């Protein structure tokens, strides 16, 4: 059975259809990449999965349970973790406390077990050295890592990464990919929106292309990237 399933999900903002009958499934442990031009509805798709916005039509299932009418809070607790395109740490909390909030309320971890769990994630994401720093004082890479770490602290079954490699230097990007690969290796499903294609394709097993809210293609990353339609729409190359 698939871990996450979207069934004919549609969403309009006024006259603009930002998500148009999108259906796909993500298996347990699978990594799916999502690409598409700006405004294709990628982040909206994430908002529909996390419950920040409700779809006009269609349904979202997690582990076979219909989550369509469940609030964001319940979905986190059921296993949907998310990192934001623009890092949104709790700036008055320390890095460690940011994770602890996520682990306490989203991951259901308590007491010292929660502390240890968060320290492990900080080690894994290379943030152990700044655990007590105020998250408002971090560099961009550290903020991106914190986004990832905090999403991991909610003990997700599927983690949604929104342009996490954007704005990083090549070296920073490489080390971030290593971390994401290790999350993937631990059996967590990943859905990753990214413009940095080589980062994306080094991790994901399948690639989806969104354009004007519609799912254009989904399949093997190499085949998808080779498709003339994708080259034309996404890369702007005349075919």
């Amino acid at each position, binding site marked *: 059975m698939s871990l996450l399933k979207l069934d004919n999900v549609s969403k309009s903002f006024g006259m603009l259809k930002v998500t148009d009958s999108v259906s796909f499934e993500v298996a347990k442990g699978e990594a799916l990449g999502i690409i598409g031009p700006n405004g294709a509805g990628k982040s909206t798709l994430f908002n529909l999965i*996390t419950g*920040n916005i409700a779809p006009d039509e269609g349904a979202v299932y997690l582990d076979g349970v219909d989550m369509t009418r469940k*609030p*964001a*809070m319940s979905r*986190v*607790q059921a296993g949907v973790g*998310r990192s*934001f395109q623009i890092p*949104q740490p*709790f*700036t*008055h*909390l320390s890095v460690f*406390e*940011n994770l*602890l*909030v*996520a682990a*306490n*309320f*989203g*991951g259901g971890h*308590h007491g010292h077990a929660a502390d240890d769990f968060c320290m492990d994630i900080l080690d894994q994401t290379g943030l152990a050295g700044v655990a007590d720093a*105020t998250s*408002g004082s971090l560099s961009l890479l550290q903020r991106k890592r914190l986004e990832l770490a*905090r999403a991991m602290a*909610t003990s997700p079954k599927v983690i949604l990464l929104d342009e996490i490699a954007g704005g990083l230097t090549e070296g920073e990007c490489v080390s971030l990919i290593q971390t994401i690969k290790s999350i993937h290796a631990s059996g967590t499903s990943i859905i990753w929106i990214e413009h940095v294609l080589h980062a994306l394709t080094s991790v994901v097993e399948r690639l989806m292309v969104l354009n004007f809210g519609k799912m254009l293609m989904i399949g093997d990353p190499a085949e998808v990237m080779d498709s003339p339609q994708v080259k034309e729409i996404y890369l702007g190359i005349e075919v």
Partner: protein
Amino acid sequence: MIWLDTIVQGILLGGLYALFAAGLSLVFGIMRLVNLAHGDLIVLAAFLILTIVSALGLNPFLGALLAMPVMFGAGWLLQTYVLNRVLGDDILPPLLVTFGLSVVIQNGLLEGFSADSQKLSAGPIEAASLPLGPVTVGVMPLLTLISAILVIFALNQLFYRTRLGRAFRATSDDAVTAGLMGIRPRNVFAIATGVAMVVATIAALYLGMRANFDPTIGPARLIYAFEAVIIGGLGSLWGTLAGGIVIGVAQALGAAVNPEWQILSGHIAFILVLLVRPRGLFPRAND
């Protein structure tokens, strides 16, 4: 020596103002809600204690202990069924609703308890005093200040040492993201207002034992509370204590010069602090 005595009395009085302000500061810090009914809710709590005390023949301290869970529940219900509905990007609806609530509480209390002045009687302790170095201080004012310090300390512990406190601070930072971390912001707000009402009950206890109260004195308590919060710096609890003390000392000094100047000098101190430090004495780093 008279000046030292005056300043000490002012500091002790500041404890009462800090108690008025702590609940207001807490609620504003977490949900950016200015509760214009805060003073009236303190007076409501004082009448609740009075009712419990006269019905059961208890000491006011015990009466307040019984009133606390009731006021927590009242705060929780108020937030869940009224204030949560008006919280949003627009700050006007919560102001209007709490202003209306202030009117409703005042008139409700007038209807139920009449306009007569009331007082909580604590017995001989009211007149007791202690020699403290060169000055003599009343036991009640001292107890008020100690309670204020303990309340602020306890709230700080709650904020910075507990799971609930982290949820308070995370929600205060960004309620939407807090929701994505599994926190239910509306629930957090309801608990916060409940806690604020428990603090308001403690304030009500000392208000009622210190002097007479009647249903109409709430708005003036709100003003003192406001001034204390703003002098201290929005969102800083220890700052609120400092703000209360600034007003208390200013009032005591004003009263020492001329009793008519007591209230006015508190307000003047507030304006002076605003002129020199518009963000208060201990503003939060980035807001």
